[in-house]
């Protein structure tokens, strides 16, 4: 990180200041400090406040609208009702059970889907044969919305756990494959050529040079895969589930419980935020060579 430096010249006759720019002597009357083209730095606290301002304003508007009756409760329940629904579900232990059940499904599905996507993406990005074998099929598969596969999967797997995990895995694999493939293609060919010269081939080349170099792309892929897997989760849990967040959504719909509906949306939002934070943390840990290059 460079910091604005103040040039100090011996003698001080032509000394100029970094800011302000008043003429010091008659000789330098026409001289000005260079216009600052560097990055403008902002205080982290200001940045954080600006980031939080819009969500907080929305929350405040919701609160105010519900309290004054401008938002009818059957359109959008007030925060208080949502909070009490939350408390109720926590006290019965249902919420913890549901979140856990959903997390288990998502975790397993993401693990399988991302693993497959990563493997295929590296293979297609690294070798011409892999690209020819894998890419056309997966591009076609990518064109099919995974929700279109729901009826087929139900006829294959029923509506049990297998169906749910497979659906989430299929949803998560697509972005993982696409971004890993791009990331691997973007690894400096010259470095790969040099590594081959040092006797690295196939899986060893992938593990020790290609995947580490493509890690920023892989982590971005993971972030997108996780958010897509939440969509998969909703779809999967609306059929044949007795627990899970998606099941709660279905219940809310059946009994027309607006407070549950809003609560579920908030839980999904929170999960999304949590995923984002975790991946950002992982980026810092897993790609330390980027050092001061801020991950934003």
């Amino acid at each position: 990180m460079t910091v604005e430096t103040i040039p100090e010249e011996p003698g001080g006759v032509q000394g100029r200041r970094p800011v302000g720019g008043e003429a010091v002597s008659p000789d330098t009357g026409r001289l000005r400090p260079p216009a600052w083209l560097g990055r403008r730095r902002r205080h982290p606290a200001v940045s954080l406040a600006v980031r939080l301002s819009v969500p907080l304003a929305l929350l405040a508007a919701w609160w105010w609208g519900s309290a004054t009756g401008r938002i009818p409760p059957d359109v959008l329940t007030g925060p208080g009702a949502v909070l009490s629904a939350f408390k109720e579900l926590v006290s019965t232990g249902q919420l913890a059970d549901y979140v856990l059940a959903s997390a288990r499904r998502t975790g397993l599905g993401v693990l399988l889907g991302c693993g497959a996507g990563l493997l295929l993406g590296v293979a297609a990005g690294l070798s011409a044969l892999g690209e020819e074998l894998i890419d056309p099929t997966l591009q076609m598969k990518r064109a099919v919305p995974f929700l279109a596969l729901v009826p087929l999967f139900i006829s294959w797997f029923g509506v049990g756990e297998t169906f749910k995990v497979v659906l989430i895995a299929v949803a998560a694999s697509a972005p993982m494959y696409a971004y890993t493939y791009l990331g691997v293609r973007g690894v400096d060919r010259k470095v790969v050529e040099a590594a081959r010269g040092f006797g690295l081939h196939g899986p060893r080349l992938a593990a020790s040079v290609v995947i580490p170099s493509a890690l920023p792309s892989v982590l971005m892929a993971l972030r997108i895969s996780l958010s897509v897997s939440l969509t998969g989760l909703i779809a999967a849990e609306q059929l044949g589930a007795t627990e899970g967040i998606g099941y709660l959504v279905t219940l809310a719909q059946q009994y027309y419980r607006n407070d549950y509906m809003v609560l579920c949306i908030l839980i999904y939002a929170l999960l999304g935020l949590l995923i984002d934070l975790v991946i950002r943390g992982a980026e810092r840990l897993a790609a330390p060579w980027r050092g001061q290059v801020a991950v934003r």
Partner: protein
Amino acid sequence: MSGPGEVAVRVRGLTKRFGAATVLDGIDLDVRRGEFVALLGPSGTGKTTLLRLLAGLERPDAGTVLTAPRVTTVYQEPRLVVAKRVLANVTLGLPRSAREQGRRALAEVGLAGRERDWPATLSGGEAQRVALARALVRDLDVLLLDEPFAALDALTRLQAQDLVAELCARHRPAVVLVTHDVDEAVRLADRVAVLRDGAFAVDRAIDLPRPRDALSGAADPAVQEHRRELLTHLGVALSSP
């Protein structure tokens, strides 16, 4: 200095074409272990192509290329893996047991204590020295140098040249250096070959004593004679001294 060892590079009748252009036209070349050969030539004369053929990165259209089994290339760019620390870059592709050797190689290039640095934090000269350490940590028969000093500033370049001369004298591989710098070639090589129109225009032994000092070399009449001769073959018209 001991005499040259067994032949480590043998090239016979090597021809390489790119489309209609014949870049190399029936080249013969032998390089022995411990011998330092510099390839000079105007740009586009196939110096780098010859090196890539030796490295197995291109296929010949005709003729044979034979090399001893352990060949390593240092390129113009350091080509380090940015996601690996310096020591891991040096021991790339080697078992974990090679870490101690890697440390020694880093010390040899003057980077002891920098094992855990990231490549992005190195200067251009330091990164190139890591690339050299990465080549030297392997038991190698043939060292191919593709303009490894071209991207360095003048001062760093002189230091890096000294380092390469010293390391090659110690490890004694067969060395093929591609360069466009006559002074560099005369300073480092036992033999200088000039490539022109797809063939060697000259293949000249540089029998100057070592170590060769950049400063006194500039005033040495023998160095000047080699320089003048090579520049003439490169097509540079010189005014009389």
